[in-house]
């Protein structure tokens, strides 16, 4: 790979700046939403069952504790510095630092989301390429319809149906949580338990997300296969298989990379509902719990963390793309 030139560095710098901007927007949204929302801050800061009974003194104390009596700009500054120090506040329900609660859940979600994206890319992308390479056939057309169906099914519903079959009828897999609540086995047993509990959420998430990647892979390979260089490759004497794999798929991988990066945001959204269905102790489940218990600071913190993850994934794809595609390398910033 050629070493990055001045233009490439400018490009990287531009991308990083852009995503820093996105992050700032996400943070600002987080700051602004509660302040724009109807009702008083108190509604969001004390456990919901205490809101009705709170005394004026307690009220003052809470406001002071969160710096809410200060001017808005000052509040914003405090908020930003807080985040930089890794302080996302304290959960109203559990009284624990929000950051701790988030970090405890993060690994579970990382495994689920990472696994689902990988699987969905392999399964969906692979099938999509296959479908594009064999266009015109009956199987191909029905494959398309099938994946569009998958793409259209609500993830939580698929999750519920899988629960019905695998635990309700077949009683095959333990389904709730990621680890047995009691009697931790440790070592290999623990890993196995963990893997078993991961299976259903992972399958669910993969199923729903594979459809979209199928469509992207199919359309980009179909596009590449209609290009002139494919004809030339065949005229050189390459077999159809070599042409499709060595030239078509190779080039069609590029749009797929972008699609996968964009997917991260959607998969994270899907994970939220899937984790809820399976009581899988990731960030999504945490979000659900905080919605139910009206634990707003936790909710906001979780959103922020997910935003950071999605932004990092997008940044990674953006930086990866020029390495894969020399044409992009040649361009400077748009």
């Amino acid at each position, binding site marked *: 790979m050629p070493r990055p030139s001045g233009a490439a560095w400018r490009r990287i710098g531009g991308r990083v700046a852009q995503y820093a901007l996105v992050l700032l927007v996400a943070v600002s949204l987080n700051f602004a939403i509660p302040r724009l929302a109807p009702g008083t801050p108190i509604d969001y800061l004390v456990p919901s069952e205490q809101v009705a009974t709170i005394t004026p003194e307690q009220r003052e104390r809470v406001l002071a504790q969160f710096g809410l009596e200060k001017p808005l700009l000052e509040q914003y500054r405090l908020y930003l510095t807080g985040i930089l120090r890794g302080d996302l506040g304290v959960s109203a329900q559990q009284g624990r630092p929000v950051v701790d609660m988030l970090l405890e859940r993060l690994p579970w979600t990382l495994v689920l989301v990472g696994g689902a994206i990988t699987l969905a890319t392999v399964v969906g992308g692979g099938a999509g390429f296959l479908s594009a390479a064999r266009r015109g056939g009956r199987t191909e057309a029905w494959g398309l319809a099938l994946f569009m169906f998958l793409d259209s099914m609500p993830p939580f519903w698929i999750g519920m149906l899988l629960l019905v079959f695998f635990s309700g009828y077949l009683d095959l897999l333990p389904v709730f949580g990621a680890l047995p609540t009691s009697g931790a086995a440790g070592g290999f047993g623990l890993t196995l338990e963990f893997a078993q509990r991961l299976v259903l959420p992972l399958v669910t998430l993969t199923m729903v997300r594979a459809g979209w990647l199928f469509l992207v892979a199919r359309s980009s390979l179909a596009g590449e296969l209609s290009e002139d260089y494919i*004809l030339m490759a065949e005229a050189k*004497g*390459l077999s159809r298989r070599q042409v499709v794999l060595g030239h078509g798929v190779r080039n069609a991988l590029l749009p797929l990379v972008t699609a996968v990066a964009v997917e991260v945001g959607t998969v994270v959204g899907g994970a939220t509902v899937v984790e809820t269905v399976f009581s899988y102790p990731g960030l999504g489940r945490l979000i659900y719990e905080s919605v139910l218990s009206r634990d707003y600071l936790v909710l906001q913190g979780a959103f922020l963390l997910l935003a950071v993850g999605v932004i990092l994934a997008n940044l990674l794809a953006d930086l990866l793309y020029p390495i894969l595609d*020399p044409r992009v390398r040649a361009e400077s910033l748009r």
Partner: protein
Amino acid sequence: MSTLLEVRGLNTVYRTTEGQIRAVDGVDLSVGRGEILGVVGESGSGKTTLATSLMRLIKPPGRILKGGEMLLDGEDLFRLPRSEMPARRGRDLALIPQSAMHALNPVIPVDKQVAEAITTHGEASRKAALRTARERLVEVGIPPERHSAYPHELSGGMRQRCVIAMAIVNEPKLVIADEPVSGLDVVVQARILRLISDLKESRSLSMMLVSHDLPTVTRVCDRIAVMYAGRIVETGEARTVFEKPLHPYTRALVEAVPRVRGPKQDLQSIPGDPPDLHHLPPGCNFEPRCPAAFADCKTVDPSLEEVEPGRKVACLLYHDDERE
């Protein structure tokens, strides 16, 4: 000159929503060893379909009708099983496709693309193939420092040279070039044609050159075949056809050529519209636009017949027997 390629009764059809069209309609042609045959035709004449058919690269909804023959060195390539074709392509016969500008894979360096043409056919190691590829690139005029460039880093002329290198790298018996210079600047066109002429000399290349540009084809080719509406309407020695065109269509084409030397003549244009392959006239395809048409032309479909040694034309004006 012995015959290298002999095509007989080639028909290629396309299925469309409006019905089937015959893009190549019963074409017979031959190319001699070390000879360049020029196939001239305007849009819709079927020249590109002809070139693609000879490579057996016609894709659905198009197909080559059974019954045609394509003898290359006496072997009928149309009879080969489909699976054997890849081994022949690039080695027995090579293609320089239309829009060569886009014929290179945008994400692979050009020398690797040329080398791929070698490795796919043989025993050569990757390294040896790359070396040969670079030699060929130098031969077609690409300086060594550009060999590992990506296509988008090269100009149109350079890309065209790369495609030519790719076509000759396995020393094919026959090269089929489809519009090798269209879309390039005139100076570059001239250079590419010079390159083709040079290669013909140095490697005694046999070639079929397909183009819309009659004067250019006349310049580089030994013989010419003029196509109209999927058929060959006139063939003969290149200069003779250009200087003494027989078929009214060829004549009109010659008169439409602007010249930079010689007396300034008015340019002629052919009245009417290019042929619509869905609705061809019952008689001669050119009859609706033909200035010399007479009554029989509306009903009799002229065949390609020899009128002088080495000269064939499909026009009733020259067919004594069909005239009455």
